[in-house]
């Protein structure tokens, strides 16, 4: 099993949380996993990218054109980070507007949920529901349950379920 995933967003949108959940899911399947994250100044609202490499890799970075799946928390980041993806890779974008990608209005749904910051888990749920990830929604749900601090647990689970449900 080998899968390379990019998560692109703006600092504060929760790209790191998605990254951590995917890494924990890989570990739960006894798969090797390496991730890479953006820290520091860019976290103040700047463009950030995380990479998740599942399988027997040694380096944490994905070369251009090699990513199997893309999760975009900001539509405008497509222009910046799409080059990391393979030509036929599924691309999931937090956007109310459709395009040459699979869109879900994660921000709008999160607002309805009363938790604007949970758009990240809605997007993750949507991609998992589409069976695009190395693991299914059941495992990710378990990981979110186990690895989320208590005060965010319920809302994060709700957001994730909302994303999964959008597929059906």
């Amino acid at each position, binding site marked *: 099993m080998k899968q390379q995933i990019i998560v692109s967003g703006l600092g504060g949108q929760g790209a790191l949380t998605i990254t951590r959940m995917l890494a924990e899911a890989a570990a739960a399947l006894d798969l090797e996993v390496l991730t890479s994250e953006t820290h520091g100044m860019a976290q103040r*609202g700047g463009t950030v990218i995380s990479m998740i490499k599942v399988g027997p890799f040694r380096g944490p970075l994905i070369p251009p054109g090699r990513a199997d799946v893309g999760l975009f928390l900001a539509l405008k980041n497509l222009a*910046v980070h799409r080059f990391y993806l393979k030509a036929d890779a599924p691309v999931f974008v937090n956007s109310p507007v459709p395009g040459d990608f699979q869109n879900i209005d994660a921000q709008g749904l999160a607002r309805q949920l009363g938790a604007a910051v949970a758009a990240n888990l809605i997007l993750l749920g949507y991609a998992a529901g589409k069976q695009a990830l190395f693991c299914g929604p059941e495992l990710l749900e378990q990981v979110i349950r186990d690895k989320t601090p208590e005060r965010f647990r319920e809302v994060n689970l709700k957001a994730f379920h909302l994303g999964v449900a959008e597929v059906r």
Partner: protein
Amino acid sequence: MESESLKEPKQHRILMGNEAMARGLVEAGVTLAASYPGTPASEILQAVPGFAREAGVALHAEWSVNEKVAYETALANSMCGRRSAVSMKQVGLNVASDPFMRSAYLGVKGGLVVISADDPGPHSSQTEQDSRFFAMFAKIPVLDPSGPREAKSMVGQALRFSEKYEMPVMLRPTTRVCHARQNVPLFRPQSLERLAMFEKNPGRWCATPQYLRELHRLLNQKIEEIAAEEEFFPILTPGDDAFPGACIIASGVALAHTWDLLEEMDLLRRLDLYQVTMPYPLHRDFISHIKSRYQKVLVLEETYPVIELQLALDLVQGRRNKAVPGEGELTPEVIRRVLERFLDLPAAAAVTLPAGEATRPTLCAGCAHRAAFYAIRETFPEGLFPSDIGCYTLGLNLGAVDTCHCMGAGISQAAGFYHAYAAAAAKVPSIVATIGDSTFFHAGVPALINAVFHQARLVLVILDNSTTAMTGHQPTPEVGLTAAAQRGQPVHIADLVRACGVGFLKEADPYDIPGFVSLLKEADGYCRSENGGVAVIIARHPCMLDREARKAQSVLEMCVTEDCTGCRHCLDEFECPALSLDEATYQVVIDGARCIGCGVCVHVCPMGAIKAETKG
């Protein structure tokens, strides 16, 4: 003693490289870890108290006021025979360079690992400097991990050799190791049960010049001996004969990227690949080994040619002959092109480069630094604004930061600017320096003493948000909480400022922009008065990423009225991320999800079109 860590791992856990090193410190029996926060190293010390608590281990973990102090504190623990660690970002080692250099000569007792995290790119630093070069300069051995798992095991290795040779050993991770996550095996922490015992030996611990020649000879001998250690002969992954006479030598994360690329190109195990785990001193026999076997050698390492210079062979391709770019991060795309040229392979189809521009970072909505910078810029349109290192460097977006050099430099530069204009008998502009609370403790105090003593006339605004925000909210001495979340003895910025001899000191909340503007004018007036000097304003407002502070603050209901003319003043001069222009109506709109209701923008709109109401 080592057998504990050789046992089957109890479990695996996903850890960030920095957390993995922290865990490594606890497992290796370290009893004192000190640091000053800085990307990409901050999470190392941050994770130490948690792992210690979890393992039931007693140790002293501290956020020191700066890296020099951290180094000296850890060194003394080591002089008492106990294992010690000091961690920092690469430019932190510049600050700690004085004790670092001398500790090579005087050595250590208990193992001392110096973790200096480099930032090729750079992503979040002032330079791309290579700490391994610094280690070579100091004659201190350095290990170069290729990933989080290896970084953790190298912590134990570094401490073991540090004790064997009684010298500090550096561990040099890079950003891609520090901020990678990997499943990492956990072992039971060693309990070394050593007493703290400082043995007096003035010839060593106070070494005057008469002793140093001998200590230098001993240091040279130690370096020669460690260079012969079997354990540090570079690790060979042999190839077949597809590329006769060629090999690749790599270290750190460059090795990891190269490994993955060779695998992707179906070239792994087609040519000899060496991993150098100790780039300085390079293994004694490695140079002749390479010379006798290969005609064509590629060296890949971050960020300066440390291995390359020690090999000193003309057959080496690398940074010296420009086969490898001399600056910037060695990302997979960069290394791929280097490999293709080295192996005479056709270049892979070029990937279309991104058309879009990355979004630049900005101060958070509700950040009081924005209010302070806006007020400074509005008050002194012709002012000079030296600044410093932290979130507030983003004040450059607001035109209120003209310099950013290194920790504490803003105050000295402000004084230097004053003397430059004053000595040239020119009209002295208003000079307003800004510095964060943590940076002020780090290196601002000596600079302030110097500015006061030499009668510089400047306004210093200390932006006190009660935390070290940029690096993940480490407490400052004023907050009074230690790294282990215990009470310390608080040290107050205002007391320090007074003790530096400053004659004008006021505190204010910059949220009140009109009040802050008049305070700035008053401070400038003091500077220009007959007996004026340095004026200090402490701009006090907590960081809005602090959940408790945010909860304690009242939330205003913000709206934009029809009076908005779309003049863009609030967007361009204030740059709050919650404000944007609706292209259809050409009026400003407020993003309710990002706005925290601080109400500062009410003072900013020239038309008075932004209104605030207290939420019912």
